[in-house]
């Protein structure tokens, strides 16, 4: 039963990678012939490269912002009691708890209709950052709750001031969780399509948007297959690393 389940989960991903090596352009199954020429061709494709660059830029900005906001929030919510704590916990989860289309449309109306902003790569980054905050927050909070205040208090009892304690005690303990959160946030942002479609202007093309635009073009299919295979491989690496780094939290903070 477990094997069936795992097979169910992994077969489509394997299909993608295999298809990217399929020599025929029709992509019937099973593939008759294999080649690496599509990979070579895609590496030189300028629109693909531009899309990759855009995705990386957005993901880096979103992850950086999410790291700062998520960690600050984790400290605030894990170490203090205050009125509005429940509300804050709910608010930070909402961006990924509400159906994607709702969040997407909310950002769209917020940016365009109410703030009168033109869409740009920054609106995409802002939207990504907002739901990446909860990823970092979950990881950081889990770690903070696990380590508790005891090490910090011990450090201060031994004479270290607050800043030194943070530098030598708190931060090293938190580092792993922050890294795990950052890796997951990066992966999430890189792959994001639902909200991105609503917050990106015509000129800004992230990699998922590129795939989405080219899905219906049969002559682009080989390139799309390669890009898809690359996306699978790219997202697997940060997740695996983040699992190794985070250790205790099984879902890596998304659930």
């Amino acid at each position, binding site marked *: 039963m477990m094997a069936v389940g795992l097979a169910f989960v992994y077969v489509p991903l394997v*299909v993608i990678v295999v298809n990217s090596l399929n020599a025929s352009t029709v992509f019937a199954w099973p593939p008759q012939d294999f080649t690496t020429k599509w990979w070579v061709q895609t590496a030189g494709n300028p629109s693909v490269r531009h899309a990759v660059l855009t995705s990386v830029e957005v993901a880096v900005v979103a992850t950086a912002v999410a790291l700062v906001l998520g960690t600050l*929030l984790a400290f605030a919510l894990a170490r203090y009691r205050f009125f509005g704590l429940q509300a804050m916990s709910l608010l930070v989860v909402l961006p990924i708890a509400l159906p994607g*289309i709702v969040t997407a449309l909310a950002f769209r109306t917020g940016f365009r209709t109410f703030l009168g902003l033109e869409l740009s790569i920054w609106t995409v980054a802002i939207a990504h950052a907002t739901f990446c*905050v909860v990823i970092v927050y979950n990881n950081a909070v889990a770690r903070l709750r696990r380590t508790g205040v005891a090490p910090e208090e011990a450090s201060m009892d031994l004479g270290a001031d607050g*800043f030194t304690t943070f530098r030598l005690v708190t931060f090293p303990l938190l580092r792993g969780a922050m890294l795990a959160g950052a890796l997951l946030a990066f992966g999430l942002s890189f792959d994001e399509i639902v909200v991105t479609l609503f917050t990106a202007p015509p000129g800004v093309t992230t990699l998922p948007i590129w795939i989405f635009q080219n899905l219906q073009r049969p002559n682009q299919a080989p390139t799309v297959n390669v890009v898809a295979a690359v*996306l699978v491989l790219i997202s*697997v690496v940060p*997740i695996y690393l983040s699992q190794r780094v985070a250790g205790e939290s099984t879902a890596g903070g998304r659930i």
Partner: protein
Amino acid sequence: MTGDVLERVEQPASARRRLSAALFRHPRVRLAGLLTLPATWLVLVYLSALVSLLVTAFFTVDEFTNAVVRQLTLDNVREVLTTPAYLGAAVRTVAIAATVTLLCVLLGFPMAFFMAKVAPPRSRNLLVALVVTPLWASYLVKVYAWQAMVQPETGLIAWALQPFGLPGPGFGVTATVLTLTYLWLPYMVLPVYAGLERMPDSLLDASGDLGARPARTVRSVVVPLVWPSIVAGSVFTFSLSLGDYITVQIVGGRTQMIGNIVYQTYTSNLPFAAAIALIPVAIMVVYLALVRRTGALDTL
């Protein structure tokens, strides 16, 4: 010796140490410092966006320019609630979401049970990693893989069903349900796994000792205990299916769900799209309210 200690204690505190001590004595200042940045961001960027969505649903649109006209009106909401096409889409979407959730439970519970109770402890972490990893592999790529697989003549599924003489599912509601089940399965497996892990093995033994066969044990002991986790998982699978608009466009053929109606109308009539988008919000609010009573939200 004593003289050294006295000298060290009498040194005047540095500015940094004084600041640290002051912060220590005033926890509310520390809290404010920590909370300002994230709270401001979340409220200004996200909460305001949600509010603007709610308000926009009651605006209307200039017919010629498609620009939003800020006049409050109930027209959009009325149109959404009374037109059969939209109501039908809403019902269909809920039905799809419910089916997906059910399938995820049926597939995910055995997997989670195996991972938590049957598999040897050493392989548990590996199994968890194996289940989590595809959770994060690109959503769009997975849908794209399914598009290739459900192709009527040439897809993998059609090829696998050939010996049985059955046609492939083709594009449509079936393909949508299958793909969504596939996409959200890890969201069900992981909370159920966490819940099962918390359940002591001794309960299973005790049930067996009292004469229950495995099926009875599962029905009467395991499921009631792990029910909050199942419900927690269902929140994700239901919510994600309710709002999906990309999967249904790629593998759903001509199927209309709430999601793709919003996608089709938001550029020409934003307030109307906003009104439609409120339907999943309302449904989720009700769902979450019902779910809260089962205690599932505490496990999240």
